[in-house]
């Protein structure tokens, strides 16, 4: 008849505990109740009306009473009706039932508490046991590992002994089997690396080896000690410096009666000591006491400094709170002014940042591709420029090569022509001489040799200019002979020492002939070669 319903009752107040929904059947064993925490709470007086209103109302009074009666009778309580089928209620019975229910409730609560305590205990026991179990397991495994390791070592040793025996046997066999062939053949023995002769191994050498070894070790230790000493000295200096600084930081009041209570005497002693120690060269003393004194004094000073700083901090904060009320009004005004100013500043800064951001954005709006393209553009430009220059360079190089070639050809030709001319000249002189002795007629040919050429001056000038300026291109249009001769003479006159062909490697410019001739006439005449030539000219005309 009675069935346990799932009752969900809302949270009533903060003070009351939660009520968890539960379902259970009558057949559920009591032990399983342990796993569920069931907490019923009494409703607080505030919501009592609602609570009670939820179950029984004016309308369903009779049904609720009969329901209650049923429940109570099922639980073993006597019926609350006065008569079995009547509608009157036995008040005494009701009160008794209520009392019984209250007692039952108390008992249940107590039982619940106990169950909870036990639950907690069991939980902690479980944890503890698990830890112990884990540790035990680890230990067990370690034991297993160590036992396996010892067994393994033992087996390895056994195998190793066997192996050694085999090796010994092999070694004997190998050594016995004396190979007929020389184990080492060498063309000739080499001198030692240090040039000295090898020494016999004697006791003396042993002793010397020992000596050497100890020397090496000692020198190493000495070096290390030196380094450590240096380090120590530096650190001591630093500590001294720190101490001085700390003392100077501390205000002189600190050494007043405040501190004198406990360690005033000690302080004064210390100060004396410190004074003494400062006078002496402390970094030369390295005994324990000195070191301790130094570190202790530094610690003390440092503590004092810390206290001082803390006190200052307190003062400042106290000062702030203390003086607040007095300066309230004034400071607020100032404060407001300041804040106003700062706000303005902030506004301005923000605006500036915005504008800058915009500008930046504009700059960076081109995405990666465009930037890459741009970069590439610059690179392309560069590259194209470079290629142009390369092309020019190559062309110029070609031209230079051409000119050089022709220049060398011309030089060769010149040489040949010179030879020919020499011969001609010789012949001519001979002829001249002969003709002179024969008859005194002036020779037209010779004169014409100089005058014959259509544009003698110009040509001479040309050649001269070319000698001076251009090593390379010789105009083939000019008739060779007079040109050659004139060239030769020009050479002799113009370049008195310099042979023209060889010494003008650097002249590049292929100028305009006309321009050059114009310039050259002037320069040539200016150079004073003109009159020379003319003199020569004159000389050769009889």
């Amino acid at each position: 008849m009675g069935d346990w319903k799932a009752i969900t009752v809302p949270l009533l107040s903060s003070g009351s505990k939660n009520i968890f929904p539960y379902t259970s059947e009558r057949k559920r064993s009591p032990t399983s109740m342990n796993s569920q925490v069931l907490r019923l709470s009494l409703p607080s007086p505030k919501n009592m009306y609602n609570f009670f209103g939820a179950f029984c109302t004016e309308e369903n009074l009779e049904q609720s009473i009969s329901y209650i009666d049923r429940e109570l009778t099922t639980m073993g309580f006597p019926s609350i009706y006065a008569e079995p089928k009547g509608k009157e209620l036995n008040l005494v019975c009701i009160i008794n039932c209520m009392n019984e229910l209250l007692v039952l409730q108390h008992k249940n609560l107590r039982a619940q508490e106990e169950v909870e305590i036990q639950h907690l205990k069991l939980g902690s026991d479980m944890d503890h046991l698990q830890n112990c179990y884990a540790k035990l397991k680890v230990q067990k495994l370690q034991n297993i590992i160590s036992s396996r390791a010892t067994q393994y070592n033992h087996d390895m040793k056994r195998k190793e002994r066997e192996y050694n025996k085999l090796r010994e046997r092999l070694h004997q066999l190998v050594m016995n089997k004396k190979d007929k062939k020389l184990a080492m053949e060498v063309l000739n023995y080499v001198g030692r690396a240090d040039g000295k002769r090898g020494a016999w191994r004697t006791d003396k050498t042993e002793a010397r080896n020992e000596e050497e070894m100890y020397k090496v070790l000692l020198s190493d230790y000495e070096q290390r000690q030196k380094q450590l000493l240096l380090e120590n000295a530096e650190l001591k200096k630093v500590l001294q410096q720190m101490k001085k600084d700390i003392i100077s930081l501390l205000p002189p009041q600190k050494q007043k009666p405040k501190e004198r209570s406990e360690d005033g005497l000690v302080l004064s002693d210390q100060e004396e000591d410190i004074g003494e120690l400062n006078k002496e060269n402390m970094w030369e003393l390295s005994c324990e006491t000195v070191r301790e004194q130094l570190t202790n004094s530094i610690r003390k000073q440092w503590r004092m400094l810390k206290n001082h700083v803390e006190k200052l901090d307190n003062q400042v904060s106290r000062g702030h709170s203390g003086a607040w009320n007095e300066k309230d009004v004034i400071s607020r005004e100032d404060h407001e002014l300041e804040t106003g100013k700062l706000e303005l500043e902030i506004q301005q800064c923000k605006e500036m940042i915005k504008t800058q951001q915009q500008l930046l954005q504009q700059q960076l709006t081109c995405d990666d591709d465009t930037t890459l393209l741009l970069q590439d553009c610059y690179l392309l430009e560069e590259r194209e420029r470079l290629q142009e220059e390369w092309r020019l360079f190559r062309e110029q190089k070609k031209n230079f090569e051409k000119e050089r070639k022709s220049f060398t050809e011309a030089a060769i030709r010149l040489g040949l022509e010179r030879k020919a001319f020499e011969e001609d000249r010789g012949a001519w002189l001979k002829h001249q001489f002969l003709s002179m002795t024969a008859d005194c007629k002036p020779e037209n040919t010779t004169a014409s040799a100089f005058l014959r050429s259509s544009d003698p001056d110009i040509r001479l000038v040309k050649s001269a200019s070319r000698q001076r300026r251009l090593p390379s291109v010789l105009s083939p249009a000019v008739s060779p002979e007079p040109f050659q001769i004139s060239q030769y003479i020009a050479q002799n006159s113009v370049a008195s020492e310099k042979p023209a062909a060889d010494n003008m490697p650097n002249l590049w410019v292929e100028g305009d002939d006309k321009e050059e001739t114009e310039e050259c006439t002037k320069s040539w005449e200016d150079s004073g070669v003109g009159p020379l030539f003319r003199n020569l000219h004159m000389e050769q005309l009889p």
Partner: protein
Amino acid sequence: PWFLEVFKARILPQLSPVLSPQASCIQHRLVVRDASSLQILQLYTCLDQIQYIEWSSDSLFILCAMYKRGIVQVWSLEQPDWHCKIDEGSAGLVASCWSPDGRHILNTTEFHLRITVWSLCTKSVSYIKYPKACQQGMAFTKDGRYMAVAERRDCKDFISIFVCNNWQLLRHFDTETQDLFGIEWAPNGCVLAAWDTCLEYKVLLYSLDGRLLSSYRAYEWPLGVKGIAWSPSSQFLAIGSFDEKVRILNHVTWKKITEFDHPATISSKKTIVYKEVEKSPTVDTERLTFPPTRALASSLFSTQSKYDISQVPVSLQYIKPVADRANPKVGVGMLAFSADNCFLATKNDNIPNAVWIWDIRKLKLSVVLEQLCTIQAFQWDPCQPRLAVCTGSSRVYLWSPAGCVVVQVPGEGDFQITSISWHCSGDSMLLLSKENFCVCYLEREERKGVKTCCPV
């Protein structure tokens, strides 16, 4: 930067300790070249395939070891006609090296039965018995005066210290190790570090006269020391271990002053992370010719890469190690100090693409280089704080406090650099792949101008 063809050579080219020559071998021929022009100076022929070559300390001799035949041949650079052959006979040969004076050769016979010391000056031969077969069983001091050898007798480890002058035994003492794994002298020659197998974390420090100065053990059970490195001033000893940490001991107290962790996520704002990114190859359309030249073709198809700075926090590629394999790829296996003591470069094997560079003056992580492929090797410049890294690609990466740069080896695409060897002057370095090598010349200025020249 310009490179010539990559040279086809077999194993172990080495730059000599002194400036000029450089030797490499192909099959059974030894080729000696000039280091700056890579012109062939000498060509020697050995009796068998060469497995190992080494220059003597004064660069006058080269030894060529042929392990299969058990023969070592020594050649002279001054006199090409001079020859020397050392035959171990039936004893076999597994390792061979020079003594520091350049006049003795130490051969380790098969099964580590003994070490034979052959003298090129006299007829004398010395034997060292019971040498230990471990990774670093023989160590010479930097000044070449003393040699330490790890030995094992009756299942116990010993260390013998010899005077290299006359090979006299100076000290012989036992070590408290289970299975001594390696020994290394401090650069000042006064302290010898010895460490145990990875099953036991133990680092022992011995003085030159055999006294145990200190013993350091960070933890007990997990796998221990993977590698150590001394700082050039002997001030610090860095110990890399399987727990992905490096612990630094100081030389005064031999206690740990700090430990460096290598987590997969870097969150410190002060660390710079350089990440290698691929960039598509640029094609210069003007220079396209038909038929395309080989250089052009290779440059078109080879991937270029450059460095980008990643924003912290950065998550690095982390490889979870396989649990049930021996010698797992976990922990700090590669570590090296820079020549000026200011930096330490490390690699955590389960973050295989990253090089960690620590600032030793501040004891903090300074830079992380994150590469595209697994780091194969790195080496510091012997003169300045410059680190060269290779990852098995055809690029070498250089880092210095000024920045880092990717250097591409032009030529055929498949030049996979697996190791680097700097020249002692810091001006050039050898880049080695399995079958080829290449020499990279660096310009004097700190700028990334790099000129590389591979012999044809």
